[in-house]
């Protein structure tokens, strides 16, 4: 399991591995939004946490099809499926590797990007924590979607259509947590809900992803 995790992380950091892709996309969103909103720093500060959440969500989505498709194309997936690894563990590790190379870097750069969107300092922590709690769900749901579309030609569009509706609860509660934090309100409830979604998806979706992967490899 550790070997698989280390290999996937190594692959993500190598040339063409897609590590910088999500961050670059996130940066583009953050740079372009102020141009679109105009010179209204108060409005920008108000929408900043929501924009950052949408940016992070779409940045995650961008790299989802790489979770299984590359292994499927080069034959690794067949070899891994016949290796002494439970397929459920494999899908969980793949989701973890995706989070470590996409979700976690997004969380870490969020305070910097928040400054660019004029987010007040008191909003930094709740926003970062909401992303820290919510991005594992994005990676796990994404791994399930990637397993569903593995082997499908041009499955990226289908993957987006499948996964985006499943992302909505995480987005709603994550953005709500960040908003409440910014306004100085108690954000325990949305924080617990986001954490619950992440825990629920981590507990259940690797099994579902393994089942559909097994069917798709036939």
């Amino acid at each position, binding site marked *: 399991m*550790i*070997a*698989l995790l280390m*290999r996937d992380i*190594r*692959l993500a950091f*190598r*040339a*063409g*591995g897609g590590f910088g892709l999500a961050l670059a996309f996130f940066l583009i969103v953050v740079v372009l939004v102020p141009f679109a909103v105009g010179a209204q720093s108060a409005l920008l500060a108000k929408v900043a946490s929501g924009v950052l959440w949408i940016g992070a969500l779409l940045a995650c989505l961008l790299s989802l099809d790489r979770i299984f498709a590359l*292994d499927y*194309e*080069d*034959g*690794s997936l*067949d*070899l*891994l*499926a*016949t*290796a*002494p*690894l439970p397929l459920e563990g494999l899908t969980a590790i793949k989701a973890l590797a995706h989070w470590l190379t996409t979700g976690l870097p997004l969380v870490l750069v969020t305070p910097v990007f928040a400054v660019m969107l004029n987010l007040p300092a008191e909003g930094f922590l709740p926003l970062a924590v909401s992303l820290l709690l919510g991005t594992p769900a994005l990676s796990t749901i994404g791994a399930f979607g990637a397993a569903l579309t593995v082997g499908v030609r041009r499955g990226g569009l289908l993957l987006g259509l499948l996964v985006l509706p499943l992302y909505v609860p995480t987005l709603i509660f994550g953005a709500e947590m960040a908003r409440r934090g910014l306004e100085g309100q108690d954000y325990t409830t949305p924080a617990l809900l986001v954490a619950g979604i992440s825990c629920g998806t981590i507990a259940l979706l690797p099994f579902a992803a393994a089942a559909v992967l097994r069917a798709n*490899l*036939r």
Partner: protein
Amino acid sequence: MSVSVHDLSIARGGIPLLEGVHFDVPAGQALILRGPNGIGKTTLLRTISGLQPVRSGRIELAPDSVTYAGHSDGVKNTLTVAENLQFWADIYGHKGITSALESVKLKTLADRPAGMLSAGQKRRLGLSRLLVTGRSLWLLDEPTVSLDASSIAMFSNVLEDHLQRGGSAVIASHVEIALDALKELDLMPFRASLDTSTFLEDGEV
């Protein structure tokens, strides 16, 4: 008995391919599957490896004894030769990759990115994975594709060593492989009859 197949029927995408297949491959022996393209050699190997479901019949083999090598080698172009092989060694809990690299004559290329290898060298790297799995039954699908004559001879030596250590192999190949402990099975007599009832049974009509 390393692998024993009894009255096996297999299908691909709901279409029956082979029916009533039966063979035994004892330890120390290899079986070459012969037959025209599309008859079901790959599907048969994938079924034995557990990737495809059995339609009917029975496969007897020891648990955790199988390793499968398909058409694609599972080689990652951005990893070096050594990193590619070390990954599989770690997955199978095998210590050391040097002897495996020497067996397929890739030791001098250990630090080269796999993307810079030729197709034949990549194939050899893919085959070296078999040596670090520690599995006794090798299921090989066209293992000699892209290999030149000397590499085919090298592969034969690797396979012979495996058989002499008590291993066994089922190989789908159109190429002659020079080995003493080798049997051939023509799959043509097992070709499935595509009658309507079979299609109805599989829900295809």
